């Protein structure tokens, strides 16, 4: 059998690699759509700041995309390498979903990326815009398939168990499993929100340093717009997501709330600060609002929902972890909504460029979206434990039969390489952002002289030959 520490090492390795990976896709998804908007705006209005911003953010995008791709390939192979028994049992369900993701999303992103980044002089504006559009479409399609796959592991349906293996019997049921719509919308909004926060922070940084031109104003203003709209929307979707989870994964919700003993007829308080203790089966509560958990989750003051003690100890997720990861996510969500509202208000009153405190706040919450995404995934994934396919297959039965020695060695390699490579990469991203739009590289964009309208008329296949 697999040693317990080998299981733990395999889990840590997966969590570490996917925790790095998700940061890049989140920005890829958000930036790709942002670039579509920027290029569209430039093609329509011909205004220089949009072009400048497009060139600038596409450089950031390129570096980020590269990191997303290489960290993603690790994930696709880790299923077999580390979770071989899961792959053998459930590969017939998750494999086709991943195959569709490759076919309909990864190739689309990769195929049009080259033209989008390097093809300015080689295709007309319409084809170039189409390429940007296809890349953005690819990122959204990609999110759809992988989230379908993950959601099926959370709330499995549409399958039969034959000799201990999952056989899909209804693909629509597999894909449109109960948690899929919530998770997809919540994740996509999270990507947009996280990107808007990064863009907003970049703008705030330049404004604080006294660089106040049209491009910087445009991007900051666009980011603020996204924050006020997407922030509250994300909270609403998250609320609905939680209600859905209560229906399908009640143990996860009990752990999130640090709720142990269910007493029908007595409202459950919302513990804001506390410490769930797995050993004593109780939560030390330091700050709580009476009955609020009942109100949020059951929409009635005395509503009750299962507590963790109702589940056998072997079926409980670690409440200490998910209690806190959830509070980090929601806390940041509330913070984002607050700063977004403040910024929008200042923007409307026209004081936003002068308020240094506002700009500092925007700068400070730049990473908040990415942190919330990681916290959210920890909640979702640790809250699913001890199951890998919820209620059907245990994580302990999913892991590959590697020894702890081999796994420690590979984990060490991953940690060293990831910190080194992605550390440097994030450094380069920050360097690019700090330099700001309109600096360098622009010479290669065609419209510097004539503007887009001239280009729209020029069917310039071939006119570019082989280089300048």
């Amino acid at each position, binding site marked *: 059998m697999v040693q317990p520490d080998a299981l733990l090492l395999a889990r840590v390795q997966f969590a570490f690699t996917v925790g790095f990976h998700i940061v890049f896709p989140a920005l890829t998804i958000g930036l790709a759509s942002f670039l579509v908007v920027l290029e569209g705006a430039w093609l329509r209005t011909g205004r220089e700041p949009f072009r400048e911003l497009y060139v600038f953010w596409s450089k950031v995008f390129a570096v980020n995309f*590269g990191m997303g791709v290489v960290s993603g390939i*690790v994930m696709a192979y880790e299923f*077999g390498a580390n979770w071989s028994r899961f792959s053998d049992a459930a590969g017939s369900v998750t*494999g086709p979903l991943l195959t569709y993701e490759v076919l309909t999303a*990864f190739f689309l992103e990769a195929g049009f990326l*080259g033209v989008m980044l*390097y093809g300015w002089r080689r295709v007309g504006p319409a084809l170039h815009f189409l390429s940007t559009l296809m890349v953005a479409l690819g990122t959204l399609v990609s999110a759809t398939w992988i989230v379908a796959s993950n959601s099926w592991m959370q709330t499995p349906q549409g399958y039969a168990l034959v000799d201990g293996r999952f056989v899909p019997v209804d693909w629509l049921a597999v894909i449109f499993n109960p948690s899929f719509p919530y998770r997809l919308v919540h994740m996509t909004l999270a990507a947009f929100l996280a990107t808007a926060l990064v863009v907003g922070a970049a703008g705030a940084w330049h404004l604080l340093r006294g660089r106040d031109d049209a491009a910087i104003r445009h991007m900051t203003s666009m980011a603020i717009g996204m924050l006020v709209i997407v922030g509250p929307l994300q909270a609403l979707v998250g609320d609905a997501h939680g209600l859905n989870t209560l229906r399908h994964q009640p143990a996860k919700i009990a752990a999130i709330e640090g709720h142990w003993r269910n007493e029908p007829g007595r409202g459950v308080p919302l513990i804001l600060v506390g410490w769930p203790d797995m050993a004593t089966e109780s939560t030390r509560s330091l700050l709580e609002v009476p009955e609020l958990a009942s109100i949020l989750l059951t929409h009635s003051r005395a509503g009750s929902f299962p507590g963790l003690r109702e589940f056998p100890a072997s079926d409980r997720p670690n409440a200490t972890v998910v209690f806190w990861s959830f509070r980090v996510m929601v806390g940041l969500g509330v913070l984002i909504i607050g700063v977004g509202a403040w910024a929008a208000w200042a923007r409307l009153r026209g004081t936003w460029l002068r308020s240094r405190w506002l700009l500092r706040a925007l700068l400070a919450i730049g990473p908040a979206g990415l942190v919330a995404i990681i916290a959210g995934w920890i909640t979702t994934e640790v809250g699913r434990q001890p199951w890998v396919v919820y209620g059907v297959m245990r994580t302990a039965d999913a892991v590959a039969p590697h020894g702890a020695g081999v796994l420690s060695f590979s984990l060490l390699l991953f940690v060293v390489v990831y910190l080194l490579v992605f550390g440097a990469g994030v450094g380069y991203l920050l360097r690019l952002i700090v330099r700001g739009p309109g600096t360098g590289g622009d010479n*290669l964009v065609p419209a510097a002289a004539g503007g887009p309208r001239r280009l729209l008329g020029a069917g310039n296949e071939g006119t570019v030959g082989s280089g300048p």
Partner: protein
Amino acid sequence: MSGVGIDLPFLWAVIILFAVMMYVIMDGFDLGIGLLFPFVADAHDRDVMMNTVAPVWDGNETWLVLGGAGLMAAFPLAYSVVLSALYLPIVVMLLGLIFRGVAFEFRFKAPPAARHWWDRAFIGGSLAATLAQGAILGAYINGLPLERRQYAGAPFDWLTPFSIFTAFGLSTAYALLGAAWLILKTDGELQRRIIALARPLAWLLLAVIVAVSVWTPLTHPAIAARWFTPPGALWFAPVPMLVVIAFWRLMRSLQGAPHAAPFVLTLGLVFLGYTGFGISLWPNVVPPGLSIREAAGPPQSLGFALVGALLVIPMIVGYTAWGYYVFRGKVDASHGYH
């Protein structure tokens, strides 16, 4: 869907073989450029070499992801056995691909003083990924023992003289592919330099092909039987003959002022080598004994994924070809958007 009489495992084996072949050819020349980097010292020439593949490398690598995902979808048992059995070389390959992949962007974004580190990352990453893939190939041909649907060997069983040799052999093939690609995409002094590298590489590749063709039948009776007993022998006889012809044409094309011919002929050689590999192992998905039929998932999975594959792969081939067409022609260093 199984009732319609479509042989799903067979079709999926063909699709996966196709994806892996596309990968070997396309990422082969990307990785080969990394292997050739040490032989070209000039920073400007290195920029040119990078820029010949910068717009396409990601698409090239995606074929590897399709191979993996397709294997998981159609032959989940094979996917889990092969990847867990070859765990260590797989990890090395993935880490190599990380260094190689980020180098494309990082090289141009790093401060000038740090750039040489990413040149090294590009070289080291390409080399690690290629050697690991070669070793994986050798270990795979040697076979992976199974017990109750799990790999039954030890973590270092993949490391054998044969797998070391295939690691070396695949490096040769990728380096020659890279050289032939660069002959197509560059001109002037750099091109002359690469042509000079291509000639010994071609001889080396021929030697590798001969050695593998002798080594495998000698150590694998089943493979010997496949090649040397009629009627199969008659069918397969053209493969070695075509290898000789392609090699001869390749050496001739490297005289004078070559353009596309070396690339096409090297593709031919690699394709023939790959065909030989397929002939040797068919119909096993995990040698020595797991056939595609035993490893296949349920028809519901194979059928569902097949619809997508048949519909979408032609489109992928279409827009990939368009991408190559957009970036056709020789590359010079001022190219690219950096």
